[in-house]
């Protein structure tokens, strides 16, 4: 993949993140490449340990340390984020690229009012007077749907409910109108009704402000709701990259089939038995050779001893996967039962 093409806001290529641990070298992300276009929502889906969070933290320079080796590129606005120094990164973080996390309570400082924290987020990047920043803070809280915003600026995080805290976090992340919002499991700690509100808010703000969003989640339901394109990660690499509809209606990688099959679906007649992926995800300290999904894949064959590259195989250049099976074999092997796609018949 070449360096940032003009239509790409963020272009990540060959990103590899390795941690030195007592137990050995841990490669959390291995050769990850993806592009983010302005105004799009890219969903990154994967299970714990798939590298989805580490990849995004590394793009923002948040995994740097003596025991970390990061290679590859992350081109943003003509600069490679991987090689930027700490000062330049600080200038971008929370300003051009913002991030929100799963647990809003631990991301907000308990000793300071929400207003003070919002004002600080604004003043760090902008040379404005406190009154002006306070005014903007109130507008931001209003924008994310917090009623009685002006009064609530003086409240502490513990006085906010879970949904309100996540709204406040989003307000803070949007304080400087970023080009990119990275949302790492932003609704996982929330109830479904609150989740629906927050997802609606993120989409609405994307439409209004035109920012691009990277939505990291383990929940394919959330992906279906908000994403335009999807990257499926497994064992530190992307195993499938597809436009939203293609991922759900024509998935190419057996791991994606397994994920789709193992979720309980409210929109389908109840399945007698859930399709399950056998075994456990591999330890990043002892990855299998060849295709990383091979030990769990019921369709693995000799060729899988060599790891397949991520490339378009299904005919659509925008739809790439890492599986040696031919498109015809894939269509034949993935189980479609009652509209459900699974890994193998239960």
């Amino acid at each position, binding site marked *: 993949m070449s360096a940032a093409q003009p239509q790409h806001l963020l272009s990540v290529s060959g990103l590899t993140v390795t941690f030195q641990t007592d137990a050995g070298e841990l490669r959390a992300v291995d050769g990850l490449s993806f592009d983010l276009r302005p105004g799009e929502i890219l969903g990154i889906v994967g*299970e*714990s340990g798939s590298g989805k969070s580490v990849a995004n933290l590394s793009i923002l320079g948040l995994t740097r340390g003596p025991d970390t080796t990061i290679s590859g590129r992350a081109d943003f606005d003509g600069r490679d984020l991987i090689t930027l120094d700490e000062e330049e990164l600080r200038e971008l973080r929370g300003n051009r690229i913002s991030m929100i996390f799963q647990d809003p309570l631990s991301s907000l400082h308990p000793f300071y009012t929400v207003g003070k924290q919002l004002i600080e987020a604004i003043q760090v990047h902008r040379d404005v007077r406190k009154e002006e920043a306070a005014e903007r803070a109130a507008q931001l809280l209003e924008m994310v749907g917090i009623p009685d915003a002006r009064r609530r600026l003086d409240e502490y995080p513990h006085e906010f*409910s*879970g*949904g*309100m805290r996540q709204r406040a976090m989003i307000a803070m992340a949007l304080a400087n109108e970023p080009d990119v919002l990275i949302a790492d499991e932003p609704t996982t700690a929330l*109830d*479904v*009704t*609150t*989740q*629906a*509100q927050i*997802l*609606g808010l993120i989409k609405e703000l994307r439409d209004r402000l035109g920012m691009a969003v990277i939505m990291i989640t*383990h*929940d*394919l*339901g*959330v*992906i*279906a*709701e908000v994403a335009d394109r999807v990257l499926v990660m497994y064992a530190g690499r992307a195993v499938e990259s597809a436009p*939203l*509809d293609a991922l*759900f*209606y024509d998935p190419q990688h057996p791991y994606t089939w*397994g*994920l*789709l*099959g*193992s*979720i*309980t*679906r*409210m*929109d*389908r*007649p*109840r*399945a007698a*038995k*859930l*399709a*399950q*992926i056998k075994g*456990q*995800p591999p330890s990043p300290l002892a990855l299998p050779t060849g295709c990383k999904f091979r030990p769990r894949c019921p369709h693995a064959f000799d060729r899988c001893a060599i790891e397949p590259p991520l490339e378009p195989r299904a005919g659509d250049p925008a739809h790439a996967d890492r599986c040696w099976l031919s498109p015809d074999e894939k269509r034949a092997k993935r189980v479609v039962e*009652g*509209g459900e796609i699974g890994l193998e018949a239960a």
Partner: protein
Amino acid sequence: MSTAPRTEGRTEAGETPLVEVVDLKKHFPIKAGVIFDREIGRVRAVDGVSFSIRRGETLGLVGESGCGKSTLSRTIMRLLDPTAGKILFEGREIQDLRGRELTALRREMQIIFQDPYASLNPRKRVSQIVGEPLALHKVARGAELRKRVDELLELVGLSAKDANRFPHEFSGGQRQRIGIARALALRPKLIIADEPVSALDVSIQAQIINLLEDLQDEFNLTYLFVAHDLGVVRHIADRIAVMYLGKIVELGPSEEVCSRPVHPYTETLLSAVPIPDPRANANRKRQVLEGDVPSPANPPEACRFHTRCPYATEICSEVEPQLEEHRPRQEAACHHPLNVGAGKRTEGETTFESGAR
């Protein structure tokens, strides 16, 4: 709430349900004062709940955080003392049991917790964790105990070789299997599973749900399955009870509750569940709730949902609706029930188009 005898948990033969709960309440006092604690209020975590669970049945209990579902399940287990009401286990009142009788009761009901990282003692080996209930209740010891532990581990898909390892050597899904093995050790009749899969990855969730179902078939277990994920609950439960602010607002067969909810709160919960189908999502009518759940220390008068309900009228803030049967075996506490009347499609009907794409 009505305390009239309820029948939905009984079979035609009039068999006693395994568990019956009658007008159960659990309030937590809110105290203030420097020297003398004064009670200045009460959190009505569970506020008059009645239902029963048949032998071999799975009752799903759903609701948002703070609705009282965990308090309810812990009160049934007698891990918390009820404030008022009755709990019957195999027809016997157990709400006041103490001492030896209570210890004996504990063999009959076991719990599986949400977080497999926090619920297993990190300093004990798997054999000790799984064998502890057997040793504690003096059911087995020595070689016999060891044999039972090995059997239990194999039963939940682990191997006897794992007995000497420590919890940290296992993944989340495997730890949950250890927790299940421990819960099964005493061959309980009732298992309360409190969010048993919500901390696990989806591919592992399916494994654990399938395991719980297999074990139920094998040992004729009765489950009270507490979860916030309606998809999971619908899959595993025979009936679903929906809680809101300490009360059950709807109770009925899983399929019916999920496809034709009677209570508006159930409808909004269902419509908030994201479904993994982009096209169906685009066509779905959403009923997004505004605001947050009110505080259980100060719940709204009359119908507790009226402050957020799209169908609320004057009566809802004046008269508390009782749990009544609106459709066969499907009860709800609402003045404006949805999906009632023969074949009538009301606003609530479109929540999920089963099988449609």
